[in-house]
């Protein structure tokens, strides 16, 4: 065919051919939808949830129940933590607060009697950021934000490069010493997707930690956020963290 031959296609013919192609493509797509096995109707639909957590600082007694429950539920190796509790002691006139967390507070805290300073407990965990720096730096797509808002790790895909561990502003990740892949809080994804709460929330005796679903209109979180002054950790990092702290002190980082 000559060059002139190809140029013979008129605008009319071009549109007609394009239209036919479009129809064919749409028919193809429909056929695929019809013949492809329909996905099984699941009780849990990811699109209906957007998970997070509320932490009420004034209710935390530093018992370490959450740390033990997390270690049991998720087989967290000794010396590593997916969640931990810190005790802050803030003295007037001192620039830095004194923070301690003996072995992640897995066995609680040795009691302090100092009443001349401000002291309180702060439970920490993965903040399940919507714009998570750890996800952004993963070179292979092994860590991701799930459609229901939980930051997870694909163990079969993780290289163990530790880039995400450095990227997390909250220090919530560690390299699993046996698996050599990154491990972190999954917000007990295996529990919350079957209607249970997380192991830490289940075990918290004072209700200081509460699993919340921002997409559930009946979740008490909406009333809680209306009634209380809340803050996320390191808001200046713009990570869109979804763990909200009630009455968080400015000294906490």
């Amino acid at each position, binding site marked *: 065919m000559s060059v002139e031959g190809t140029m013979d296609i008129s605008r009319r013919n071009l549109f007609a051919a394009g239209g036919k192609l479009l129809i064919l493509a749409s028919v193809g797509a429909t056929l695929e939808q019809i013949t492809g096995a329909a996905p099984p109707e699941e009780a849990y639909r*990811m699109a209906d949830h957007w998970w997070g957590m509320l932490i009420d600082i004034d209710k935390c007694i530093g*018992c370490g129940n959450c740390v033990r429950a997390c270690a049991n539920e998720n087989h967290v190796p000794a010396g590593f933590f997916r969640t931990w509790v810190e005790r802050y002691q803030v003295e007037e006139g001192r620039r830095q607060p004194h923070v301690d967390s003996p072995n992640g507070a897995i066995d609680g805290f040795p*009691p302090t009697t100092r009443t001349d300073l401000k002291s309180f407990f702060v439970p920490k965990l993965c903040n399940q950021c919507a714009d998570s720096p750890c996800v952004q730096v993963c070179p292979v797509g092994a860590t*991701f934000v799930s459609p229901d808002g939980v930051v997870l790790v694909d163990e079969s*895909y993780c290289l163990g490069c530790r880039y995400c561990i450095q990227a997390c502003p909250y220090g919530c990740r560690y390299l699993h010493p046996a698996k050599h892949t990154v491990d972190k809080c999954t917000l007990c994804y*295996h529990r919350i997707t079957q209607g249970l709460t997380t192991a830490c929330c289940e*075990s918290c005796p004072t209700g200081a930690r509460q699993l919340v679903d921002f997409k559930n209109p009946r979740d008490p979180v909406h009333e809680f956020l209306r009634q209380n002054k809340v803050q996320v950790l390191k808001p200046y990092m713009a990570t869109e963290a979804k763990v909200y702290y009630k009455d968080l002190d400015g000294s906490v980082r």
Partner: protein
Amino acid sequence: MVLLAALGVFLVIRTALIPKGFGKYGHYSPGALDVVRQRPLVYAGQETCILCHEDEGKVRASGKHAHVACEACHGPQAAHANADDPAGRMPVLPDVPNLCRRCHEKDAAKPAGFPQVVTVEHSGGMYCNRCHKPHNPQL
């Protein structure tokens, strides 16, 4: 020709290496979601405990520990709850002195309204459950 062959080899290797469905929800393998979801339970959950231990639940409901879940003190019990013969996998009784101390030992960092004692002065090493009923403690 060589270029086409190289491109073909590249495409074959690429298809073989990329997990099935990669990119369905984002830059990750959707299969990972199911892998995480299929991890086994260790804590059975409050509602499961109450299915059998209804009486204990009623006793607790009227006391100070009404909102403390069973497994907060009794530890993880999914193995007990899911066993064919739960009585054959009896839970170990809680370690009373340490269990009570963790929550109720006096600490200036604890919220002021929370009941706390200096255990040495309060009971001098005597087990808390000699006087207090853990399922329905009265002050």
